[in-house]
């Protein structure tokens, strides 16, 4: 019976096999392997059984270390068990991997291989993680393509059962884990045929059981440990043969033959490249292309990397080989060479073959690896003295390791359709393209491949889809550079990206355009017109947004653009294509309701009438060009280094352009004008009461307020608005609320927060949304003028009032966070209050991505050049990382004071005494201390003593520093909880801000221990069955930790007070901040309202626990919320994460709702009782700013 052809990505292929042949699956999210866990959890929650008829048990752990521990235990107790991971996650498994291997325990860990965080984090693919476990005793088996992932996932498991060697089965992160390709799905019969149940029984027999007790995990001494370590040798020696036998058995079953080392190319090749991973496919394509044109070269693809099979390696390599290049997708600084290179050199030596070998690095962090680069390597091997320890794919102008190559060289098959689509993350382009690949892959004989490139922003992000279809197998594991179809799904992209540079001669260009075929030409940049004419492109336009509007599709143009693609490209006959699209719509959307299907059908039916060919003029007429990525006044580093990244040309930057140690300047986001908002807020100065609420809630710091003297208005643009300041103490001054039009994301939270309503038309607020395009230029001029107005002296303001806080300059601005983000307002507030003396340790997660992802970053500086200094260490260690900073600062401060004491006579006792005794509890005190330290430094500069020299670099430590430890709930509740707990217990003065979205937002919405009962999340597809952990209450049990639970939307004054109290407290402080999130499944414009609901229903009771109150004889626990007034269901069913369970499993939803309501009731009683303790009258809720 023919096997099913499916169009899936590498993660799904691995998970498909792993879920079918395991019983226990311990998981933890990490990009790019998370989907393997997600699929497993979902399939188990749907009751899908494995090949033995039982549904695998899937459990999410608190970290990869936890997953490895659970894996080890499950294996020891006799189950077939697995896990999935990447990068740092695999590194966290290393201790257990030694144990699992040392105990000869069969298992397979499936790894989407990824770069390791070193000078910077990278989520993208290379082999640094798997190379870091090559010494653990695990076997390492590499898959190079999606089909191989499915096949070798099975082969690895079979081999492991037979050989007793545990395996890491790995494939390249993103390039393979996320590439969608047409593959043959293994059937249950295949899996059963391959797995020998006797070996499963043998595994069970070795398991721990009190019925036949054994003991493992002994402690061994010098007398026997060594011998026992050597006792495993025979298993490792036998393993390669086992692998090959299993591969042979698999070949008989499926027809796909693998070898430990697969050689391809000329049998008598003189030059050979050795490598593993997805790059090998590009290399094979190149070798075949060049050999067909007279070359004599070969490629050795390594599948079994550990145990390294010396004999089979030597056999696989043609006898004729004279030169070898070994390509490693990893980097080991300080080594003689990278691991595969060293292994090959050693293997050849031990095999007695004296062949010159050079090694090189390629493709780190998913850097493109193309046939042009492969050819570059083979060309290098022709030279008399090929460069060793080279790099390929970059320009190393510092240590000159890089090889030259011809970027124009291409091996693209002319019979393959190559299509590129530029879209927005939110417009559905990627989804439509995945659907198209499925249609073509599963409904035609064509081979199909799809790969998707994303930018680094979470809002307004650009996607580029690369699709190939054709009659021949596709091995092109690299991006398309010669497209015969280019689609631009967003008209504004034309100004930003040179997308037609990838179009080949005579290609088709499809543009989503608000302008019709007769008007569009005059709206194209000059270079776009030139390319269309020069390359004789066939040019089509469609007004997809108009069709989407007519058919109720909103902003999703996926179905419309997909229909256009099929209509123009001719991949399928038009009628058939339409029918297939509709089938796909039914399949994809049918379960979400007939109305959704009908809406999409209508979009398909309306499309063709609006698709028009454009008659291309003979000459270009446009007078404008692509926009500059950054303005000319941007600093040199921004111009030279960040600007190329912004415009998509970061690959062209040479090594010398990049910092050697990962250190970047801050305040760079201001230079990247993204213009992603369709509408922006406009201030009505006549209605405004200057309360500052809009400024407070703005996630991107694009609404600012300033108070200034009227004389500063000289030269103001004509449309610049101003009004008298409504402060008693500043009534002579002017006030302006200004929006940054090109940085706003259009979320509307500011409008929602505005308490003012026009008495003549209540829908009007003091700030209202208007079309951005018509306001862009004038408001940009106003913004520039506004920025030049002086900042008000901070010491004149009361930081305890929201109204005053709006005047404080935010030192966190224009981040790439989601539109309407619920986290960033808290960080921005922190930056306004303490930013000029803040040191930040940031856990990996959303806040580290929008906080530190290149090209530009949001932490900013004030006019004096001060601002937050920021670093991200890891996901799991952030609390400790921040504590280390505190320890360091405290130590240096202490030493500075010691030196100051010694130098006091020379410096003058008055200055020294003033510095020693400074009260830095208020802005004014800090400001005065800064002035004293400035005087001190001037004096020190004149002094020659060693003490003076030692004091200079640490003198600034005499000014109070504010250490902030920031992260999400995944960090604080799960992976970092142990460290966080320890830091809370340390008593040191750190401020911990937990941005609680109740889910792992950054990796796509996996359950954390903060996820509430009843909420659906990835890894909790059936609704989370257990209650949310009460981290805040746990922290109060220490007694000496300041704790606050806040929700800005429910109480902005409460939030502000909590931040001030936490920072002022001389000990550990913990603020848990309710952060609405796109992962909750509702429109973020309602985020503030939903925060109120969360508080009013008792899900999120506000409280502060201030240990300082104990000294005053008061109860430290102040409950700031009123008793719940809203049933829980009125809050939760506003969010899809809850309501979807009502649709998928109403009985379970009802049960979990009742339990969750009981959780709320019980917790409220507990809080009330706690607040009533000690007989104190500590209940003094914070007064909120009254609404107008």
């Amino acid at each position: 019976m023919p096997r099913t052809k499916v169009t899936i990505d590498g993660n799904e292929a691995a998970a498909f096999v792993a879920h079918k042949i395991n019983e226990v699956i311990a998981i933890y999210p990490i990009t790019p392997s998370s989907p393997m866990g997600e699929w497993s959890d979902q399939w188990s929650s749907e009751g899908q059984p494995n090949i033995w008829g039982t549904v695998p048990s899937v459990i999410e752990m608190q970290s990869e270390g936890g997953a490895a521990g659970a894996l080890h235990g499950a294996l020891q107790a006799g189950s077939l068990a697995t896990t999935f991971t990447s990068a740092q996650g695999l590194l966290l498994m290393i201790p257990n991997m030694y144990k699992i291997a040392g105990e000869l325990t069969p298992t397979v860990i499936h790894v989407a291989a990824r770069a390791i965080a070193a000078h910077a984090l990278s989520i993208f693919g290379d082999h640094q993680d798997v190379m870091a476990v090559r010494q653990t005793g695990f076997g390492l088996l590499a898959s190079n393509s999606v089909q191989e992932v499915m096949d070798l996932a099975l082969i690895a498991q079979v081999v492991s059962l037979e050989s007793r060697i545990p395996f890491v089965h790995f494939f390249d992160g993103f390039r393979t884990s996320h590439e969608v390709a047409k593959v043959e799905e293994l059937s249950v019969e295949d899996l059963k045929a391959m797995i020998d149940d006797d070996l499963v029984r043998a595994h069970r027999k070795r398991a721990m059981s009190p019925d036949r007790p054994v003991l493992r995990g002994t402690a061994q001494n010098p007398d026997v440990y060594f011998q026992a370590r050597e006792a495993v040798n025979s298993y490792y020696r036998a393993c390669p043969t086992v692998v090959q036998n299993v591969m042979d058995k698999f070949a008989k079953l499926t027809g796909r033959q693998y070898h430990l080392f697969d050689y391809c190319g000329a049998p008598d090749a003189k030059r050979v490249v050795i490598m593993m991973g997805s790059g090998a496919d590009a290399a094979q394509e190149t070798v075949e292309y060049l050999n067909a044109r007279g070359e004599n070269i070969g490629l050795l693809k390594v599948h079994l990397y550990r145990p390294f099979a010396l004999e089979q390696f030597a056999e696989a390599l043609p006898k004729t080989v004279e030169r070898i290049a070994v390509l490693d997708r990893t980097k080991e600084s300080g080594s003689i060479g990278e691991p595969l290179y060293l292994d090959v050199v050693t293997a050849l030596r031990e095999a007695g073959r004296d062949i010159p070998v050079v090694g090189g690095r390629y493709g780190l962090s998913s850097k493109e690896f193309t046939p042009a680069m492969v050819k570059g390597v083979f060309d290098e091997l022709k030279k008399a003295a090929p460069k060793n320890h080279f790099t390929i794919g970059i320009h190393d102008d510092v240590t000159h390791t890089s090889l030259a190559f011809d970027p124009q060289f291409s091996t693209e098959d002319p019979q393959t359709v190559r299509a590129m689509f530029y879209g927005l993350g939110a417009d559905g382009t990627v989804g439509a393209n995945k659907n198209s690949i499925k249609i073509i892959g599963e409904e035609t004989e064509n081979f199909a491949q799809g790969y998707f490139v994303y930018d680094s922003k979470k809002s307004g992000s650009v996607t580029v889809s690369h699709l190939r279809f054709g009659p021949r197998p596709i091995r092109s594991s690299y991006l398309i550079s010669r497209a015969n179809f280019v689609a631009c799904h967003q008209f504004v992209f034309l100004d930003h990206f040179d997308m037609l540079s990838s179009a080949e001669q005579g290609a088709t260009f499809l543009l989503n355009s608000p302008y019709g075929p007769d008007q569009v030409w005059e709206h194209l940049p000059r270079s776009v017109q030139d390319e269309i004419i020069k390359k004789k492109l066939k040019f089509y336009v469609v007004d997809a947004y108009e069709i989407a509007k007519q058919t109720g599709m909103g902003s999703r143009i996926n179905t419309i653009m997909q229909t256009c693609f099929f209509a123009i490209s001719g991949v399928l006959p038009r009628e058939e294509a339409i029918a297939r699209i509709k089938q796909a719509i039914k399949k994809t959307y049918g379960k979400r309701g007939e109305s959704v299907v009908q809406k999409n059908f209508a979009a398909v039916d309306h499309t063709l009438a609006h698709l028009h060919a454009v008659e291309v003029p003979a000459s270009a007429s446009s007078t404008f060009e692509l926009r500059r990525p950054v303005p000319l006044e941007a600093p040199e580093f921004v111009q030279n280094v960040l600007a190329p990244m912004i415009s998509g040309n970061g690959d062209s930057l040479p090594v010398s352009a990049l910092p050697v140690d990962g250190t970047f300047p801050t305040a760079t986001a201001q230079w990247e004008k993204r213009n992603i908002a369709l509408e922006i807020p406009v201030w009505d100065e006549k209605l405004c009461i200057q309360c500052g609420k809009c400024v407070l809630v703005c996630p991107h710091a694009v609404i600012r307020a300033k108070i200034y003297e009227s004389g500063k208005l000289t030269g103001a643009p004509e449309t610049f608005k101003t009004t008298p300041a409504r402060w008693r103490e500043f009534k002579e001054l002017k006030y302006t609320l200004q929006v940054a039009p090109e940085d706003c994301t259009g979320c509307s939270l500011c409008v929602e927060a505005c308490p003012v309503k026009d008495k003549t038309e209540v829908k009007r607020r003091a700030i209202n949304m208007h079309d951005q395009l018509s306001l862009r230029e004038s408001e940009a001029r106003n913004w520039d003028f506004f920025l030049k107005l002086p900042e008000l002296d901070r010491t004149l303001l009361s930081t305890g009032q929201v109204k005053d806080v709006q005047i404080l300059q935010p030192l966190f601005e224009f981040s790439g966070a989601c539109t309407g983000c619920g986290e960033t307002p808290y960080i921005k507030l922190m930056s306004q209050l303490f930013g000029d003396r803040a040191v930040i340790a940031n856990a990996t997660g959303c806040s580290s991505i929008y906080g530190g992802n290149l090209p530009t970053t949001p932490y900013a500086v004030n006019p004096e050049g001060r601002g937050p200094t920021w670093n991200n260490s890891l996901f799991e260690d952030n609390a400790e990382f921040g504590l280390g900073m505190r320890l360091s600062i405290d130590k240096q401060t202490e030493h500075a004071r010691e030196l100051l004491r010694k130098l006091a006579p020379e410096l003058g006792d008055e200055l020294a005494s003033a510095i020693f005794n400074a009260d830095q509890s208020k802005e004014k005190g800090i400001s005065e201390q800064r002035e004293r330290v400035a005087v001190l430094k001037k004096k020190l500069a004149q002094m020659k003593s060693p003490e003076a020299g030692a004091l200079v670099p640490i003198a600034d430590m005499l000014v109070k520093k504010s250490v902030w430890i920031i992260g999400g709930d995944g960090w604080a509740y799960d992976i970092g909880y142990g460290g966080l707990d320890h830091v809370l217990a340390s008593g040191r003065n750190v401020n911990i801000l937990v941005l609680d979205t109740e889910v792992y937002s950054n990796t796509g919405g996996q359950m954390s221990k903060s996820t509430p009962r009843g909420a659906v999340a990835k890894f909790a597809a059936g609704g989370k069955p257990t209650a949310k952990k009460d981290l805040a209450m746990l922290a109060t049990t220490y007694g000496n930790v300041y704790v606050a639970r806040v929700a800005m939307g429910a109480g902005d004054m409460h939030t502000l007070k909590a931040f001030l109290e936490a920072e002022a407290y001389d000990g550990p402080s913990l603020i848990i901040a309710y952060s609405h999130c796109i992962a909750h499944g509702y429109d973020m414009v309602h985020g503030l309202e939903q925060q109120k609901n969360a508080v009013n229903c008792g899900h999120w009771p506000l409280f502060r626990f201030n240990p300082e109150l104990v000294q005053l004889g008061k109860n430290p626990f102040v409950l700031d919320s009123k008793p719940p007034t809203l049933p829980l269901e009125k809050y939760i069913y506003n969010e899809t994460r809850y309501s979807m369970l009502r649709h998928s499993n109403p009985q379970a939803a009802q049960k979990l709702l009742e339990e969750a309501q009981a959780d709320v009731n019980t917790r409220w009683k507990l809080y009330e009782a706690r607040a009533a303790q000690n007989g104190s009258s500590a209940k003094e809720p914070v007064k909120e700013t009254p609404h107008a």
Partner: protein
Amino acid sequence: MPDLSTNYLGLKLRSPLVASSSPLCKSLDNLCRMEDAGASAIVLHSLFEEQINLEAFELDRWLEPNEGFAEAQSYLPDLTAYNIGPEGYVEHIARAKKSVRIPVIGSLNGVSSGGWIRYARLIEQAGADALELNIYYLPTNPSMSSAQVEMMHTELVEEVRGSIHIPVAVKLGPYFSATPNMMVKLDRAGADALVLFNRFYQPDFDLENLEVVPNLALSNSSELPMRLHWVAILYGQIQADMAITGGVHTAEDVVKAMMAGARVAMMTSALLRHGIDYLAEVRAKLVEWLDAHEYESVSEMQGSMSRRSVADPEAFERANYMRVLSSYV
């Protein structure tokens, strides 16, 4: 013991007391209690096409991958099945039919022609004894004429009537320029009964927050006379049965409804206010009233005070209006 039975929608009912559409009807347990308390039929809560669409669109919107960021291409797991369509309602009808012996009438509020017909058929297939079309239409477009509104109503009734075989009742509001004419048109379009009248939940203003707030006030007996008025006028002029809904709270209200010409009196607010068991109280008092006034059956009083049956038809007409006004001091 007087005979309480009546005929409505071709169904022989044991009394004129019908439990009308309300959230109470979502629970099978409540349906059984209604039957036990003396309801002769139950109109289920409405299936709202608009709500189904909204829920579907909302689910689709948030389950559709965002796909703009490499690490998070979606935020929620897309499960294999959702009970997003009318399936839940249809199953409820089927279960209701198994749970009670009295007739179960489905209620439908649609927004599209296709939706009305599709869902009407599903309700019929689920085993409902009849279908009540809950036409809650508020014309807000000033360019839409009364003729267009009326045509929309009649066409809808014709289409649904032509699509299913179970009896069809039409529940609608009182705001028509020529109410009798409209009712006759609906009668001719195939309505088996007219349910008079729907209550439009008109919003209120929150003066502190300057917001429009939904206002869901329960009815009281003062709303009954308007309904009595029109039923009494229409009685004998149309073939369709009539039901009174809105303002029926006491046994006396039921008697009045019957005397005006209704076949059944529907109760919703009274049950929400006093509980389901209140039905039994009303039924007992109805029997008491009939006994006290020596009526042998409900049928003998039906229409007995309709416009054509009273000695002074002017009481229903303009002359009466003038008299009332001039007597108000």
